[in-house]
């Protein structure tokens, strides 16, 4: 069973449906017992970093995710959920993340030349960093996934497993031990996205 953590951020309908589509049982929950009992955890998130980080803290879900990560359970952060895995975000100030992966989150505008639109929105091709990660076992290099974001993870070179070219190579996916993150939305990336979720279920 996969626990999709519900901490009051974003709409989790599509995420839950996408696991159903690949035949995986997923529950949207804030119940610590259920999350501890799950085989895998999804940390979702859309919206502003500071707001989401505060909700993770206030609901106790942040500590629970860290505890479960330390216990070795596979955890995947998606979109803002991925950004929350890092040490710090510089989105409207400076905010602490969960520090499960070393690195920080900065405005895309600081990394790319003028003339590129912000947010980075739409379908972009994945470029694998190093050997193809098991998360991408069903993918080919250049497969497209759907992005919507204005901030990107940086200073996390050792953890980057894929990038997307947008005036600069933007961090698209990360992995460190049993902790994974996708900046894009696998639940909105068609069959390619579903195959990434399937691979995550098999890790």
């Amino acid at each position, binding site marked *: 069973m996969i626990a999709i953590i519900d901490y009051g951020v974003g*709409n989790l*309908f*599509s995420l839950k*449906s*996408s696991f*159903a*589509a690949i035949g995986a049982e997923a529950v949207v929950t804030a119940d610590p017992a259920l999350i501890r009992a799950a085989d895998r955890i999804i940390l979702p998130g*859309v*919206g*502003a970093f500071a707001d989401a980080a505060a909700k993770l803290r206030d609901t106790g879900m942040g500590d629970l995710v860290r505890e479960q990560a330390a216990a070795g359970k596979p955890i995947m952060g998606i979109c803002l959920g991925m950004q929350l895995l890092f040490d710090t975000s510089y989105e409207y100030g400076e905010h602490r993340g969960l520090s499960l992966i070393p690195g920080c989150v900065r405005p895309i505008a600081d990394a790319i030349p003028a003339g590129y*639109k*912000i*947010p*980075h*929105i*739409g*379908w*972009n*091709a994945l470029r694998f960093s190093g050997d193809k990660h098991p998360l991408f076992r069903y993918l080919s290099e250049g497969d*497209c996934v*759907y*992005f*919507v974001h204005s901030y990107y993870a940086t200073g996390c070179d050792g953890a980057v497993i894929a990038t997307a*070219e*947008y005036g600069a190579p933007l961090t698209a996916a990360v992995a460190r031990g049993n902790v994974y993150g996708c900046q894009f939305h696998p*639940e*909105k*990336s*068609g*069959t390619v*996205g*579903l195959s990434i979720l399937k691979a995550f279920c098999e890790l």
Partner: protein
Amino acid sequence: MITKRIIPCLDVRNGRVVKGVNFEGLSDVSSPIELAKFYSDNGADELVFYDITASAEGRQLFTDILCETARQVFIPLTVGGGINTVADFDRVLGCGADKVSVNSGAIRNPDLVYEAAKLYGDQCVVLSADIKRVDGVFRVFAKGGRENTGMEAIEWIRRCVGNGAGEIVVNSIDTDGVKGGFDLEMLRAVCDAVSVPVIASGGAGNIQDFITLFDTLPGVDAGLAASIFHFGEVAIQDLKQQMAAAGIPTRL
């Protein structure tokens, strides 16, 4: 490189797609769910569901259909039609819509874009503008293009982007239905005015019209059309193959 998006638009009334379609292999040609799956399987980058229902019962049917579609289709889904309040945003986002498109609702209540963007983020709010030249000036029309609001279109779009609209659908009434190509002049004016993604709508008649659009105006991010896709005049897979062959960044 971000790819140029191809977006079919489905008009839905009382839970059914308006205007018949003609595809082989579709068991129910007026089922929005069937059609959404078909388009998703055949290369559509995103879908727009446009609710043209007037009644409350029809609205409920639309919401049910939307939920079922989001359960089965895993590409971005934009919903428009009948969006007048933040509660309308809630209603469709709760069913799995990713973005919500506002048109007349924003004209009636200009705070709607700001309020929705603050609650759901800019990326969630799409401004759809029906624009027509009147005495050489781009004017915004309301009520499905029937009523001239008198507002200058570029100024209106700028204002909505300032309030948080994250994407703009430019629907040219002048070229809509003519199938003579997109309204490049109007689209250029919008691209020059704002830095958010611009979606071209109105006028596509064939594959070349899309290629001309993306070649001429690199600032345009997506092309939207309805009947030419529904009637099979343009197959999305053929369109995307030819876009890629023409050197346009395309998701194949």
